[in-house]
């Protein structure tokens, strides 16, 4: 039986992705883990060295904060270490699967060509066999005029005895040879086709196994990556009157440029490239910490607008393009006509508001607690209504900051907008 014509399709794909890129990410996470561990040690070492050099109420607060920061750095290092190991494992497995898949693909393509070649060879040989068998039948048939059977090859041995007979026996012999040759070709083609088909099936199985292994590795990595949650350390020094942190980074000039646009004048008191803290005379201290670019874009007498951009930030599973962090903020007010832009954020401390597309302004700020969540109750109140609109979870409201001043604490309890 002639098999179905081969499709020419290998029937599987090689797993996609960039194992080198994932491996590089693993190395970066490993470096980050080293760095975080080192800084955990630095924080602990500094606290330890201050033990005898600094005694009094302030040092107690510092030591307490330092312990928490140390522990958070260590936990983050552990998260980065886990990510590094998982990513490297994934990269290795993906690389192996891609190599195996490509090899299988190459072999499969080769054997598919063989399969097609021998399929057509078999068809050809079978046609020749059919023709040869028909020819043999024709030359072996009795003479339709005399009714005499054709001479057998043994009788044809003496050409003088029967010239016609000798011609006929030669034709039979030729036909028989053609049949035998065609039968041989059919057998060879069948064997080759069988071998090619088996090879195709074998390499297809290998290719599919490589694909499945790559999918399993990705699933394992997904579980590992989703399991990593790092809680950032509390932010010290917010909402504490006069600034104590001196600007020492190159970003300071840039911050001053931004701050120069702010009505009433703004002095940068603390922060780093993407985490800015401003002191606004008559308003208070405001910090915006985020992963993306941050800057004051507009300001009023008692508010300013901070636009921050973080395309990677995730709020309740949905992507947002802006996150506002205002540790110590009593009230987050939506600026403009798009209050629906404000969503709640169940994020790390200090992140109290999130936006889809629109900036928010800080109307008032109060003295906050050390961990920077002070005032989130008010932000929560604002966010709650809009979060319901957006079907996301509202901010958890921890309660009034312990050290908010009575006047400002009262102001903080007001409506969000």
């Amino acid at each position, binding site marked *: 039986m002639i098999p179905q014509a081969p499709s020419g399709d290998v029937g599987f794909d090689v797993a996609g992705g960039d194992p080198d890129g994932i491996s590089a990410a693993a190395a970066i996470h490993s470096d980050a883990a080293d760095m975080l561990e080192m800084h955990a040690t630095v924080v602990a070492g500094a606290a330890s060295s201050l033990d005898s050099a600094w005694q009094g109420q302030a040092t107690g607060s510092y030591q307490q904060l330092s312990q928490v920061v140390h522990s958070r750095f260590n936990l983050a290092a552990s998260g980065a270490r886990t990510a590094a190991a998982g990513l490297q494992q994934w990269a290795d497995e993906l690389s192996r699967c891609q190599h195996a898949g490509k090899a299988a693909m190459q072999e499969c393509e080769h054997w598919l060509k063989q399969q097609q070649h021998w399929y057509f060879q078999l068809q050809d040989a079978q046609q020749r066999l059919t023709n040869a068998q028909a020819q043999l039948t024709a030359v072996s048939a009795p003479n339709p005029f005399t009714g005499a059977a054709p001479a057998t090859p043994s009788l044809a041995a003496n050409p003088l005895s029967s010239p016609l007979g000798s011609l006929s026996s030669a034709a039979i012999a030729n036909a028989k040879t053609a049949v035998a040759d065609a039968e041989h070709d059919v057998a060879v083609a069948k064997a080759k086709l069988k071998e090619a088909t088996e090879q195709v099936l074998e390499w297809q199985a290998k290719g599919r196994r490589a694909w499945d292994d790559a999918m399993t590795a990705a699933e394992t990595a997904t579980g590992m990556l989703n399991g990593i949650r790092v809680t950032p350390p509390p932010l010290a020094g917010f909402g504490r009157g006069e600034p104590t942190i001196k600007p020492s980074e190159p970003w300071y000039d840039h911050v001053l440029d931004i701050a120069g646009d702010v009505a009433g004048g703004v002095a940068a008191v603390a922060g780093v490239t993407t985490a800015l*803290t401003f002191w606004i005379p008559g308003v208070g201290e405001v910090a915006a910490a985020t992963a993306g670019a941050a800057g004051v874009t507009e300001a009023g007498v008692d508010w300013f607008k901070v636009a921050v951009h973080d395309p990677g930030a995730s709020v309740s599973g949905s992507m947002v393009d802006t996150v506002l962090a205002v540790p110590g903020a009593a009230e987050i007010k939506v600026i403009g006509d798009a209050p629906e832009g404000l969503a709640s954020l169940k994020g790390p401390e200090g992140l109290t508001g999130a936006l889809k597309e629109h900036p928010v302004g800080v109307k008032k700020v109060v003295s906050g607690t050390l961990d920077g969540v002070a005032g989130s109750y008010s932000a929560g109140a604002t966010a709650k209504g809009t979060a319901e609109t957006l079907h996301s979870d509202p901010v958890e409201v921890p309660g009034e900051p312990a050290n908010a001043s009575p006047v400002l604490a009262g102001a903080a309890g007001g409506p969000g907008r």
Partner: protein
Amino acid sequence: VSHFQVTPGSVQDAGSRLQGIAGQVLSAHGAIGGCSGAAAGTPGAEAFEGLMGHWAAVLPHFALSGAALSGAVGGAAEAYSATDVGIAVAADGGGKR
């Protein structure tokens, strides 16, 4: 507070050691940000980008925390040093009188 005891130089040293944290954490933040897209084309891409987003959100807090600790200690050291100097000046002045 009825009592405190400070060696301003030691406090200053501790502040200096904490100073490097913010910059290095932000470097790591930038490096991790550069990994974005590395898992594109795989079923793990979403989880990978989720982790990158998570790092992007929290690492600035680590940087800020380091800067705040450093600033707090540095500020305390400066304040205590100023107090020491003030007391010394006052003591000298008192002696002269």
